[in-house]
């Protein structure tokens, strides 16, 4: 029954989006973290989504309808961290500079809203499918 696949599909989407929210939270939390070296600076992380076959027929390609999503990897942004003058900081180097994170708060906020909306959409899909299944169970009554 294909309606049951919807739970797998919407569930995988919720999983992926909550992962994205998690990563965004991590990025925003570390937006102001500093380091003495460029290598030690926090770099923004971003999840990479990939289409994945889910459900009982995951192994066979005969059920292309049940295409969920999974997080393939979490990659770090390769934007150069920001170097700024802050001699009062205990982490400052000999010249008085610290390396800040390369997190772009605007980008992260947009990411957060997008993830939140997509998550809500998946919840809605799941709720609707559950209603349909329950109504189907009550068929003829």
């Amino acid at each position, binding site marked *: 029954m294909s309606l049951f696949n919807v739970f797998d599909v919407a569930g995988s989407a919720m999983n992926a989006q909550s992962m994205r929210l998690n990563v965004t939270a991590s990025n925003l939390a570390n937006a102001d973290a500093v380091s003495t070296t460029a290598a030690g600076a926090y770099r923004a992380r971003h999840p990479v989504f990939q289409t994945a076959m889910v459900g009982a027929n995951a192994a066979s390609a005969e059920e292309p309808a049940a295409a969920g999503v999974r997080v393939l990897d979490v990659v770090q942004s390769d934007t150069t961290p920001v170097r700024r003058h802050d001699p009062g900081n205990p982490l400052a180097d000999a010249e008085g500079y610290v390396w800040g994170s390369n997190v772009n708060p605007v980008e992260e906020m947009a990411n957060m809203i997008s993830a939140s909306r997509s998550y809500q*959409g998946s919840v809605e899909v799941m709720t609707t499918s559950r209603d*349909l299944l329950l109504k189907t169970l009550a068929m003829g009554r």
Partner: protein
Amino acid sequence: MLPLDSLFGVHERALLLRGERTAVLAANLANADTPGYKARDINFASVLAGEQANLPMAAPNSGQAVGTAAGSELGGSNLQYRVPYQASTDGNTVEAQVEQAAFAENTVRYQASLMFITRQVQALEAALASP
């Protein structure tokens, strides 16, 4: 004698197809943020045309032929890629508002078919209960 196979007419098959389409649209919505994902949908008209040719109403004596193999075809050959209104640079062709509208429409039509079947059952029960 009452042809039980054709009691529900097209709605029995329509219900299956609507269920299938729910999964396809759910997959589209799930992959709304996946780069390179191409949104798909079931071409309802072409499936219906194929089903109508098999309907027992058209051929009362071959009613048993209905419902074979068509189930596996529902999701396969009739899946088509959606043409996006505004293509996205990451290759994703899912447009959430389009998919949500299609999902809502599909849900209502599913319930409509369900209601037709329910009413048919009730009518049959009423006929059986009458003295």
